[in-house]
């Protein structure tokens, strides 16, 4: 479904991704862990089409399509969804208007008519319940004055509305208390299915107790230095990144 090969990306002269290789099959959940500044959010942003980052080498294909040729919105139409680490506040645009605009853009691309008001409201009610998001927030400007937890839940709520093929969660767990974490994880789990894959970026093994990954990758300084199953997260918790980096020191990718 997703095939990342030798991906290099930079911002200005600052090289951030230095040769990422990653293959994700339908239905799989991949967790990416790594120290601050290692490039996790950059990878997520590059996948979603943030033009601030320049891809200098490598390729990304998604269901056979060359993702790097697609604009951010076209990637969304193909089914790539990024839940932001820092959701952006947009004063003056109500969340519900934005959501409707987004859903209709997706539908237009699929040749579907605009969503009926009643159907939209029903969906909002249903999906906001899934992440226990107060649906009064729909009337407020996008993320403006939302608490940290509300912002993260709003991201997962939007993901549920969009029903993407690939959901990228960038530290969606950071800043959530344990109850909210369970709610959010539960929401994600409900979305899991044989055709839907996830990339879950996190610092905390705790999240992975709830969203159990098929694979865990450790990203250090723009490279995946170690991959394994869910036990790798536990190992990380014990040894820390330093331990993992030391072990994998000899295993720097060649070329």
């Amino acid at each position, binding site marked *: 479904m997703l095939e990342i090969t030798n991906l290099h990306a930079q911002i200005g002269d600052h090289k951030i991704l230095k040769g990422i290789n990653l293959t994700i099959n339908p239905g799989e959940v991949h967790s990416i862990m790594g120290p601050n500044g290692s490039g996790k959010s950059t990878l997520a942003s590059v996948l979603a089409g943030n033009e601030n980052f320049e891809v200098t080498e490598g390729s990304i294909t998604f269901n056979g399509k060359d993702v790097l040729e697609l604009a*951010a919105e076209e990637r969304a139409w193909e089914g790539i969804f*990024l839940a932001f680490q820092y959701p*952006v506040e*947009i004063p*003056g*645009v*109500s969340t519900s*208007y*934005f959501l409707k605009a987004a859903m209709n853009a997706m539908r237009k*691309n699929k040749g579907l008519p605009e969503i009926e008001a009643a159907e939209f409201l029903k969906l909002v009610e249903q999906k906001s319940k899934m992440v226990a998001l107060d649906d009064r927030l729909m009337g407020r400007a996008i993320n403006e004055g939302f608490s940290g937890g509300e912002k993260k839940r709003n991201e997962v709520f939007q993901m549920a509305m969009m029903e993407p093929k690939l959901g990228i969660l960038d530290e969606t767990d950071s800043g959530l208390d344990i109850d909210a974490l369970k709610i959010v994880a539960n929401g994600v789990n409900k979305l899991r299915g044989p055709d839907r894959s996830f990339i879950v970026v996190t610092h905390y093994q705790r999240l992975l107790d709830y969203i159990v990954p098929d694979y865990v990758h450790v990203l250090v300084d723009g490279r995946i230095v170690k991959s394994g199953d869910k036990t790798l997260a536990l190992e990380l918790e014990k040894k820390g990144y330093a331990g993992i980096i030391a072990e994998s020191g000899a295993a720097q990718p060649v070329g």
Partner: protein
Amino acid sequence: MTAVDTKQDIQHWSDWKARMPKDWLAPAREAAMARFEALGFPTTRHEEWKYTSTAPIARQSFVAPSADAKVTAADLDRYLFAEQPGALAVFVNGRFSDSLSDLSALPKGITVMSLAAALESQRDVLEPHLTKHADYREHAFCALNTALFTDGIFVHVSEGTLVERPLHVLYLTTPSDDPTAAFPRNIYIAEPNSKVRLVETYGGQNGSVYFNNAVTEFVARDNAIIDHYQVQRESTDAFQVSTRQVFQTRDSNVSSHTLAFGGRLVRNNINTLLDGENANCMFNGLSVLRGEQHVDNHLRVDHAQPHCNSWEFFKGIYDDSSRGAFCGRIIVREDAQKTDAKQSNMSLLLSRDAMIDTKPQLEILADDVKCTHGATVGQLDDEAIFYLRSRGVSVDAARSLLIYAFAGESIGQVRIAALRDKLQDLLSERLHYGESLTFGRPFEYSDDFADLVRAADRRRET
């Protein structure tokens, strides 16, 4: 230097001198013409005209518009609101049109007529005010208008009369072979405890060159409310100078909104004298410009008495090589303790060639006052655009949405729902990024003005 320029500028106007009406205002008109001749058109060396060159107006010679322009009711359509407010007064090329106007729905206690008629029948009401507030001694455009005006709208609201449904005054300029000039002169008098709502729309066909030099005098007596809107949809080749002179006594409330979409060169002079305790004024503005348009909003709020509040809130959206200027002068006189004056000017530049000059001027002579001012100039937020795009919104729609959102706060100050809808339509026409927003409104507006002010205050404080 400047003297030479101004002498040349004025020669075009010698023909006009003969057109000065010989009515009971003749002495004021003579004096005004003499002042115009002495002042000439200001140059950019004039402190108050630093950012706006009047040369394009001065260079051009203008003729009086012909009286037989054909305008039908259908020509008005694009300027009217979905639900047309209370009454409609139409001026074509500066002259009142009886056949296009409909003043039948006015309630008791309000008198609306053309100024030409009022000069004959309402002299006792007019005499204390007309030409008494707008300063023709120091301001060339006001002097020229005072010398030459023949018509405009006269509105007099008697004591205690509350007029809820707005009066719409429409000024249409029709295309002509030679550039024309008109001098609309309006007067709004709200007696104590009265309330009135007025919408002025200025419209003309793109491509036609003309000059509207308008002066409006507002008188808000004790506890009176005037809620005024000026929608500028002039031809993109037109010149407009609009002077609004507001005189307020105690407990009065005046708001005047400047919604600028049209015009090649527009100058708004908005002045108020707060001459009674607890008088409040609110000046809201939104400019949406493109091409070579230039709009200069020039305000002067004079706090002459204690406990008055003034609020200036101007926003501009500038595309292509359009230009904006904002100059807000707040004067707080010695006795005007407990003044609360707020001013803000926010600009969104959509192109590299667009430009805004902004200048607050505070002259504070009292010591127990609250004055705040702020200006921001920015571009569309890349992060926000990426966020919207990542959810499937196209880049064009994302830009449009953010522009909408920026304008939303200004449009939100408008307290007439049908006018808000009109403004949003005008705005979406302007968002020429291919895709417009075809359904609904991005924001539900609150009709409760106080809420909006409070919300804006909270934002400023944080």
